[in-house]
């Protein structure tokens, strides 16, 4: 099992009157090569879910085994390494660094891996070619459309060839046509073997995933496998 959540809680302001249980006893297993959509309304806990799964945040209680390793036992440095090597993030707001151009943004995770200049350049260009952004390599994020920025962010996420790709509302800021392109790309990634976790509030978008996990009030409401809308 790639991801194993068992009775995971994420509680803010614990034992205060204003206590919020963003995750309220979630148990979930995700296998290698799955395409999972985590669906829920705003406030359902899906963003917290993504932060916990992505090792950006540590659960308050419960067990999270990633590839058999207990996340709560790890140091900040080790978590950084996991985010760097195991996970590729795609965000709703792209989260590109404005002062760097497209190529430099894509190179960034490779820099933190300590890969040498030439090899790094080669890997970044390969990732850019995969999202058809080669001719924009020298552009800065502000000079591009939302779709182009999101493709850059995808290139950054896949440049390190991580086993897991996490996408948090990746189409939220895009028009439906470019949104479809992004989703199709995620499906292709999944076909090539990556585990894809898609977080969305939109049931239509969730329909592109084989498995749907529906969250409400920090609890798993529904977990089912479905027919996929191939794009």
């Amino acid at each position: 099992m790639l991801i194993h959540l068992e009775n995971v809680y994420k509680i803010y302001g614990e034992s205060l009157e204003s206590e919020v249980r963003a995750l309220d006893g979630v148990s979930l297993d995700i296998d290698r090569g799955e395409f999972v959509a985590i669906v829920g309304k705003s406030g359902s806990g899906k963003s917290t879910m993504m932060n916990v799964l992505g090792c950006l945040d540590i659960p308050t209680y419960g067990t999270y085994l990633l590839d058999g390793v207990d996340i709560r036992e790890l140091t900040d440095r080790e978590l950084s390494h996991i985010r760097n090597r195991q996970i590729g993030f795609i965000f709703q707001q792209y989260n590109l660094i404005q002062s760097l151009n497209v190529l430099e943004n894509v190179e960034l995770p490779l820099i933190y891996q300590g890969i040498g200049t030439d090899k790094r350049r080669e890997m970044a260009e390969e990732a850019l070619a995969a999202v058809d952004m080669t001719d924009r390599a020298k552009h800065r994020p502000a000079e591009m459309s939302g779709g182009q920025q999101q493709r850059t962010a995808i290139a950054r996420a896949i440049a390190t060839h991580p086993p897991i790709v996490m996408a948090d509302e990746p189409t939220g800021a895009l028009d439906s046509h470019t949104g479809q392109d992004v989703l199709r790309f995620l499906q292709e990634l999944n076909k090539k073997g990556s585990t894809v976790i898609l977080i969305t509030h939109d049931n239509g978008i969730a329909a592109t995933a084989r498995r749907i996990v529906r969250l409400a009030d920090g609890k798993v409401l529904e977990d089912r496998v479905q027919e996929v809308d191939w794009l």
Partner: protein
Amino acid sequence: MNILQAIKMAFKSILGNKGRSVLTMLGIIIGIASVMTIVSTINGYNEESLKQFEAMGTNKVNVSASRYDGKNVFDELYNYCNSLGSDLVLGVTPNSTFSATVVYGTQNSDVMSKNQDNMWNDDGTMKTGMVLPPDMYFGSNQFAACNNFTIAKGRDLSYLDVQRYKQVCVLGARAAQNFFNYADPVGQTMQVNGLPFTVIGVYAEKDPDSSWSMDNMIVFPYTTSRYLAADTSMTEFVVKAASASATTEVISRLTGYLSGQVNDQNGYFSVYSDNEWQQSSNDWTKTMSLVLGGIAAISLLVGGIGIMNIMLVTVTERTREIGIRRAIGAERRSIVVQFLIEAAMICGIGGVIGILFGVLGTLIAGKLLLKMTIFPAAWITLFAFLLSVALGILFGIYPAAKAAKLQPVEALRAE
């Protein structure tokens, strides 16, 4: 992530925020430039006066002794000093100046004296190229040793010249040039108060830069004072001690000896050393360096706090960027290094610009205040640069630590 990569990244970030970077540097530029100007100017002045002291000669003991009965004390002094041995005393000479008219060809010291009356420009500066009259000394055969002259041409005064009242003289380099231009003075005869004196030697130049050159002098055997200045009684003497420590010893020995020869009833005497004066001059420049350097250091401190301020603002502004970097795998250490290098680079670049202004400031201050050309010493320049980088690191640590402390998920939430 290696350091080279981090430096590249910091450089990009500095270029990406040109306006802010320049404003941040301003504090460091002004601080470093003022520290450098002040320290360099004082240091330059100090070295210049050290050179002057060395030209005058170190370890000199000045003796002033006079008896009311007009009896000359030099012969006894000479014998006493020679009895002390070369461990203590290297030489002893009268050091009296006198006035006389010196003529060679068309050159006449009386004409030169008239220059002295109008040697100043209206604005208080000295006219250049003025030929001033030489200072004339009565000396012994140890005059050169006592006053730090070395013979360049011909020979020095000898013991026999002194003993036999020889009508000879030795010229300082400037006096030789003034009277003989480029011709060789050795063997020529000058008229001194109408009496013929043969030039037997020329001293090497030791003070080429000043207008009142120590080289503009002529020394005569002190015994010839009976022809040249019969009314001049010799009361000023110089004893050259062998070393700084010997100077103290010589002063106490001479004081003991002279108090036996001269007392309140028959005359007066004093013994003192330039070493003390040089010491107090050194102390003065040290104090000045500390006071002025301290003031400049405060401006550096203010500049450093400015850096910290801007870096803190930068951290806040770039919280999201820090979050992104942490999300895609930057360790805390990488973030700290990035911000530290950025601060060090801003300060380093500011330091280099500050050093350029400091060199300029030193040149201007030297010219205006001391009328000297002073370049900052290499150690001051290096120190200024290292100081600026150190300031960057010192004042960058807090903002960098603050940046790295953020949890990735919190940093990502920032707008």
